[in-house]
């Protein structure tokens, strides 16, 4: 006869536990609500869970009048909107989900943008940067500033670090990029961080030497592609009027040398783009990309001077975005897997407890604490937009200078902390109540 084994913690409760519940005893968990339309509310909570309810049902729920046998009760309970006697682990789970959502905060700054030069051969009217002509070397970052930036960067506790080279046209100062990559890698032998390099470039100066360096050091390429030839060349003028040809050839060469997944492209929407959503998406598909990030113009730099920013309204932009997205959905239905990156970020936020790391959409904002910019002159900015704003005269978001300020001074400066606290939706009036 087999010995009787002790019964340890059983997986299932007894049948009584599953019988219909009686009574309406439940407590509310913290939640935010906002009207979706005349008849419905969206309810959201800490964990980023959401539920859409008819207004009458939502009011019933908040007044503790909801029937505990209803389907909506179970949905609210499973998504942590209410707590009852059965909810033994709900608070722990909710706390864990919230901690997961905020997990990037613990790692601190992980994106470091080096503006290696402001020089550029292009003269794009929408440029956010206030570029300088190709021969003006005074607008290059010095080796001394770069070395201080590297020291600064390794002060961040983040186990994963992304080094992004920006411009101007960053490859016009490739020698400095080579210096930085080599020095960072040497230092990382001891640091042991997970480091990734990205060069943002228009690919004009791409050479075999640069590609072989990128291959050797696993450097990613990020470029600009605004759409079909005519649109791209109109948006991005350069001597010869062949920006499109240069970009497409460069994308091909980079993919061949580094692998398809090492090359990404970004687009900017101008007034001329608005009538071509399908053509723009088609161009990305034709060039072998499986996603596009639809971006409106940013109100900085040359884009302001040239009046481009006022070139179209928010409504026009949204209409463009909607039409592009509809076409992308259609492509997917036709069996062509293609993604719109901004929608992906939003959906990830709506549907999962995981953080996106997208600095524009987090609380507190990612300025300084997720990403930071080292300008060519050693100035430190809270974000790419901050240095662009400074180029047009507004230095409010300048956090310090590499030659005079330490990591600790910059990160604990009133300047940064004041801005951060103003971006915390947890405590800003109106934001604190907003369901979105």
């Amino acid at each position, binding site marked *: 006869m087999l010995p009787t084994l002790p019964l340890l*913690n059983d997986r299932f409760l007894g049948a009584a536990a599953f019988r219909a519940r009686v009574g309406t005893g439940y407590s509310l968990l913290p939640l935010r609500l906002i009207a979706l339309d005349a008849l419905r509310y969206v309810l959201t909570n800490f964990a980023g869970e959401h539920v859409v309810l008819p207004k009458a049902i939502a009011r019933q729920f*908040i007044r503790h009048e909801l029937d505990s046998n209803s389907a909506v009760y179970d949905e609210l309970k499973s998504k942590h909107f209410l707590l009852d006697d059965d909810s033994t682990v709900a*608070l*722990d789970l909710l706390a864990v989900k*919230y*901690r997961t959502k905020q997990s990037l905060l613990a790692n601190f700054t992980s994106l470091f943008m080096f503006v290696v030069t402001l020089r550029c051969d292009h003269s794009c009217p929408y440029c956010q940067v206030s570029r300088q002509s190709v021969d003006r070397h005074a607008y290059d970052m010095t080796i001394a500033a770069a070395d201080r930036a590297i020291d600064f960067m390794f002060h961040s506790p983040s186990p994963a670090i992304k080094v992004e080279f920006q411009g101007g046209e960053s490859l016009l100062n490739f020698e400095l990029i080579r210096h930085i990559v080599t020095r960072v890698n040497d230092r990382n032998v001891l640091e042991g961080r997970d480091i990734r390099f990205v060069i943002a470039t228009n690919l004009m100066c791409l050479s075999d030497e640069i590609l072989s360096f990128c291959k050797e050091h696993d450097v990613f390429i990020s470029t600009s592609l605004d759409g079909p030839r005519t649109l791209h060349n109109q948006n991005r003028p350069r001597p010869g009027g062949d920006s499109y040809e240069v970009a497409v050839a460069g994308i091909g060469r980079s993919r061949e040398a580094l692998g398809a997944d090492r090359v990404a492209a970004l687009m900017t929407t101008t007034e001329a783009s608005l009538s071509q959503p399908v053509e723009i998406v088609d161009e990305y598909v034709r060039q072998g990309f499986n996603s596009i990030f639809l971006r409106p113009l940013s109100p900085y730099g040359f884009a302001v001077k040239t009046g481009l920013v006022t070139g179209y309204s928010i409504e026009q932009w949204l209409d463009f975005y909607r039409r592009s997205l509809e076409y992308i959905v259609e492509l997917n239905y036709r069996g062509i897997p293609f993604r719109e990156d901004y929608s992906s970020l939003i959906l990830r936020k709506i549907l999962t407890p995981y953080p996106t790391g997208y600095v524009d959409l987090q609380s507190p904002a990612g300025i300084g604490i997720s990403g930071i910019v080292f300008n060519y002159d050693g100035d430190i900015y809270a974000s790419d937009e901050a240095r662009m704003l400074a180029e047009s005269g507004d230095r409010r978001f300048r956090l310090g200078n590499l030659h005079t300020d330490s990591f600790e001074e910059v990160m604990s400066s009133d300047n940064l902390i004041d801005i951060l606290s103003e971006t915390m939706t947890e405590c800003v009036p*109106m934001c604190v109540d907003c369901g979105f």
Partner: protein
Amino acid sequence: MDADSPSQIVLCFDAQVYRLAAVKKAAYRFGDRCFAEILANVDGRIEVRLTPKSKTSALDLLEGEFRNEVLDQDLRESVAEETERVRNLLLAQAFSQVSLTDHAGESGDYRNDPLGIASSQVR
């Protein structure tokens, strides 16, 4: 709106039903559309005087929307009041190194089996 129409509307809310904070928040929310003056405790009522910033605003529409907004804000206030303690506990729990909600599990003696891990749930 013609020249004879009133340029201000006066709304009253029962202070027994609506919280003052809810009325204030609604007025703040409408700050882009009208100026608001709030008088608390007018015979047990909260009185709100709304003056539209634009002459073309339809006053009856504004009144309806404002009343709805006060309802929404009051609902939020009641949620906030009820959940304030658990909200603070959650935030503390989320960023704490030890569990604040499971005292026995964190600090109990395993020999006493405070969570009943070694015993059957079938009685």
